């Protein structure tokens, strides 16, 4: 049984992938190749991009922007979230502002971002930053609010100092909730990375896609999309691994 379920877990995804490729091949037959390239054409384009080295430099640029913006968002949103979670008055004051700013898509910030920061890395980084910032901030706030009161009662009863309460109770107690936000933010940040790079950058995977479109290289467009998808999957897996490693260290509750 174990063998069969292991077989299915490999076989079923492989089958659906094959079916998808077959469907793609058939669908591509109805349009001219410059509008809808076949899987084989996309694979060729991908190889070409990889061999010339263009692909790798774009990937490196994209990953660097992603990591910078994501870490900056985390570094700002987590402390701010911890602070707001512990201070109901400040939270009340800031909440309406957050509620108005949050529904604005990071993409909408693009015109201003270009005006303020010019063309280059900064607008893309700014947009990824915004995309990661709100999920981390909001999940940190709700994680802190959701700390069972008994944890704090116990700490106060034993006379723990405020600094110790913060470091040894509030942060670890909020940690599983913060982790959820970090995970969500990785996804939204990666999605907005490509969008940000399509709008104003001169490099990166988003730029690669736009650039290919300008030359009507739909095969390269699709190759770029494929790379974005696969890298996104890889980042998500990495995040999941980090998460389960951390939660094991955390007593297996997260």
């Amino acid at each position: 049984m174990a063998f069969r379920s292991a077989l299915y877990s490999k076989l079923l995804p492989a089958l659906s992938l094959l079916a998808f490729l077959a469907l793609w091949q058939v669908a591509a037959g109805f349009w001219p190749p410059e509008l809808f390239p076949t899987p084989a054409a996309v694979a060729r384009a991908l190889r070409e991009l990889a061999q010339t080295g263009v692909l790798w430099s774009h990937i490196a640029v994209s990953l660097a922007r992603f990591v910078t913006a994501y870490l900056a968002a985390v570094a700002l949103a987590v402390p701010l979230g911890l602070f707001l979670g512990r201070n109901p008055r400040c939270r009340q004051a800031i909440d309406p502002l957050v509620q108005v700013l949050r529904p604005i898509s990071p993409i909408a910030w693009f015109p201003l971002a270009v005006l303020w920061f010019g063309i280059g890395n900064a607008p893309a980084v700014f947009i990824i930053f915004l995309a990661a910032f709100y999920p981390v901030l909001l999940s940190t706030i709700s994680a802190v609010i959701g700390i069972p009161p008994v944890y704090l009662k116990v700490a106060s009863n034993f006379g723990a100092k405020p600094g110790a309460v913060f470091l040894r109770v509030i942060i670890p107690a909020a940690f599983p909730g913060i982790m959820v936000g970090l995970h969500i933010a990785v996804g939204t940040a990666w999605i907005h990375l490509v969008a940000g790079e399509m709008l104003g950058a001169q490099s990166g995977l988003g730029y690669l896609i736009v650039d290919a479109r300008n030359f009507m290289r739909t095969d390269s467009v699709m190759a770029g999309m494929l790379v974005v998808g696969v890298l996104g999957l890889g980042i998500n897996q990495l995040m999941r691994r980090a998460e389960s490693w951390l939660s094991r260290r955390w007593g297996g509750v997260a």
Partner: protein
Amino acid sequence: MTASVKISLQAVEKRYASPRGEDVTALAPVTLDIASGEFVCLVGPSGCGKTTLINLMAGFEKSSAGTVSIDGNPVRGTDPDHVMIFQEYGLYPWRTVLGNVLFAVEAKGLKGKEALEKATEYIELVGLTKSSDSFPRQLSGGMKQRVAIARALAVEPSVLFLDEPFGALDAFTRMYLQDELLRLWQEKRPTMVFVTHDLDEAVYLGGRVVLMAPGPGRVQRVITIPLPWPRDRTGESLGKYRRELFEEFHLVHQQAAIEAEYAI
């Protein structure tokens, strides 16, 4: 033999404003002295103010009138010398058994080897040495409460407050832990204030049982049970006090039922 007064309640009262703005009395004035090293059980149906009363003594709530004092000093807040044990254990899930006990010991100011020795000593006292490196999630409810008891005792408090500590446990575990608690109490002799809604538990454990009544929360009667420990759960001598308490409780219940009728 007159033991010294440990906890003194003088006309302690708790009122609060309900969400509709009405003045609600959670606890009508209570006057009660608890002697040093005594085991007192507060028992009564829900709404009788027993949890409010223990929270006032432990410093988690402030009284609206009257004074609560321990060792002659008015209670102004929580104190590491007066430790509360909660029904929901309050263990930190990200810390092991040892880590949880260490938290309390280190909060008290012990460091390094000294802290470790103290924590280990009390984990052994409650018989959990083998589970020292386990996380709370891996323990049964009874074991979790033993960890909480070890954590509380490790700071060597003079008063232990217990708010329905065994309320979430099955009957067998509860009886076992009652005996464990008595053993630990007789070894360390802190003053015990034990809240429960279980009359049998109150009679079995308490040197005195404070029966409380609802609407508004108040002390109905205080029954002294001058039997030595360990007690025979099914014995005739305990049975006498049990009957007395049940009769009194029945009265409380009838009154509450009648008042509820009028309220409707």
